């Protein structure tokens, strides 16, 4: 049996995991499932692509940082894209979610996020057409690393970036004051107010982090696969599965959930064939939930 599926699974797991962090944070702090999260990924990716284009127009073709397929423009553009996506998430909250949240019916907010998802996706198709786009057309040679596994330099770089971001978010949540405030709001919003926490500020921060990470996940897909308006929407099911599998509210759980889903999907493709991809992931999800309904790292309701 070829072990290549481990690398493929690890990569798609990293993308799913980064997306799942945003979903798990909005779910635990704002208490709704944000179905437009996948489209934030796509918007972030297109924004990054635009900035790369602008940099190329200003500075001409920049040589890639060998052996990677991309150069500093993509890194700068990614930072700009993260800021843009965080801002877009804030804007969506301001014009849509916050107003509906104030009315107190969560199912309405969830439905609104479906609507926002469709609107965002259609707008992307309108602006960029549904033809796929690419950050780079260069073909990378995968290096053999033993056991029949091959990996490209881009893949290594993106896995390292994921590790860095996930560690960073975890440290932020557990060690910083804003992280403690986020946990406090997710556990008891009324008490958080009594303690003097500015809940509005915490909510804003949550959107910024979720949006920025969605952008990174999208750009990873863009670099390793391709850029399409539907790219984020297609990730929605695995992203939610990962967040639930890991336990809602848990950052390490979301990432571990992503890796489990990613690797089992890739394994399923190899063992049973591509048509079983989603089914295997969901069978694993259901099996875990039967044994541990609150997810791997989840904590029970009080």
């Amino acid at each position, binding site marked *: 049996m070829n072990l290549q599926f481990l690398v493929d699974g690890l990569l798609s797991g990293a993308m799913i995991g980064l997306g799942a962090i945003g979903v798990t944070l909005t779910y635990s702090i704002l208490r709704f499932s944000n179905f437009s999260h996948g489209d934030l990924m796509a918007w972030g990716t297109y924004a990054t692509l635009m900035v790369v284009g602008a940099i190329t127009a200003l500075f001409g073709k920049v040589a890639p940082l060998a052996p990677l397929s991309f150069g500093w423009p993509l890194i700068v553009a990614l930072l700009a894209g993260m800021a843009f996506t965080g801002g877009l998430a804030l804007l969506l909250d301001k014009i849509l979610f916050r107003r509906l949240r104030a009315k107190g019916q969560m199912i309405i907010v969830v439905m609104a996020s479906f609507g926002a998802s469709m609107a965002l996706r259609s707008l992307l198709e309108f602006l960029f057409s549904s033809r796929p786009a690419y950050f780079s057309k260069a073909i990378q040679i995968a290096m053999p690393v033993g056991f029949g596994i091959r990996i490209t330099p881009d893949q290594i770089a993106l896995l390292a970036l994921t590790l860095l971001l996930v560690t960073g978010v975890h440290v932020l949540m557990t060690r910083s004051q804003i992280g403690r405030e986020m946990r406090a709001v997710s*556990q008891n919003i009324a008490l958080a107010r*009594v303690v003097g*926490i500015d809940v509005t500020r915490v909510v804003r921060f949550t959107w910024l982090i979720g949006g920025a990470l969605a952008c990174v996940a999208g750009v990873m897909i863009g670099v390793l696969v391709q850029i399409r308006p539907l790219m984020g929407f297609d990730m929605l099911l695995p992203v939610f599965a990962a967040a639930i599998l890991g336990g809602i509210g848990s950052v390490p759980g979301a990432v571990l959930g992503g890796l489990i889903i990613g690797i089992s999907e890739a394994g399923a493709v190899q063992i049973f064939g591509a048509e079983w991809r989603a089914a295997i992931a969901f069978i694993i999800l259901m099996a875990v939930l039967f044994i541990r309904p609150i997810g791997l790292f989840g904590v029970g309701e009080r």
Partner: protein
Amino acid sequence: MGRSVLTVKDLVAGYEPGVPIVRGASIRVDEGEIVVVLGPNGAGKSSFIKAIAGLVPVSGGTVLLDGDDITALPAHQMVRRGLAFVPQTENIFPLMSVEDNLKVAGGVLPRSEVQPRIEEMYGLFPDLRERRTTAAGNLSGGQRQMVAVARALMVRPKLLVLDEPSAGLSPKFVSMVFSMLTDVRMTGVTILLVEQNAKAALAIGDRAYVLVDGKDAHEGVASELWNDPVVAELYLGHRSAAPEGGRA
């Protein structure tokens, strides 16, 4: 004594507009005092104290804290003005460690003062130092109340307001909580509390108000109030029927 920390005048408050639960209640709390608000079930005690803390909409009257008008400020600003509130239930963050419960409340303080203040709290509540890394939700009822009070004291409040601190506790913990409040007062903190357990509260209080029908119906020195016939009358007779020491 003498300097007024809290002055509540003719407070009107309730969850729904036009349906006041608190109907013109006035109280005063002087510096260093423990003041108790008593009253039969449904008298509006809890709503009264929550309205002071900014958790129930206020439609009339004024609340002055140290001369500063804090009437109907949003709850998260009350702490910054010096009023710390301990809710009756769910008054800790159960999944956070004891220390994180204190740290998160210290966000209002300048950063350099947070850790020293936590040490002061551990000095006041040595049990909490031992359990500092334990999730607060795994503590006993009495220890949870300690976390809630320590959390409120983190910000060095001018006034500590407690909503039925003995609620839901076994008798052993009730006496523990009240002796803890006496210790807290010794550190110079002024305390206002609402209690169902009149006997225990009057034992530690300086003065008390009896709230009936959303209004302050009677005021007196705590130690005398227990035998005051007017209170017996208002309180539905604590001689004939035993005072409710239990649950709301």
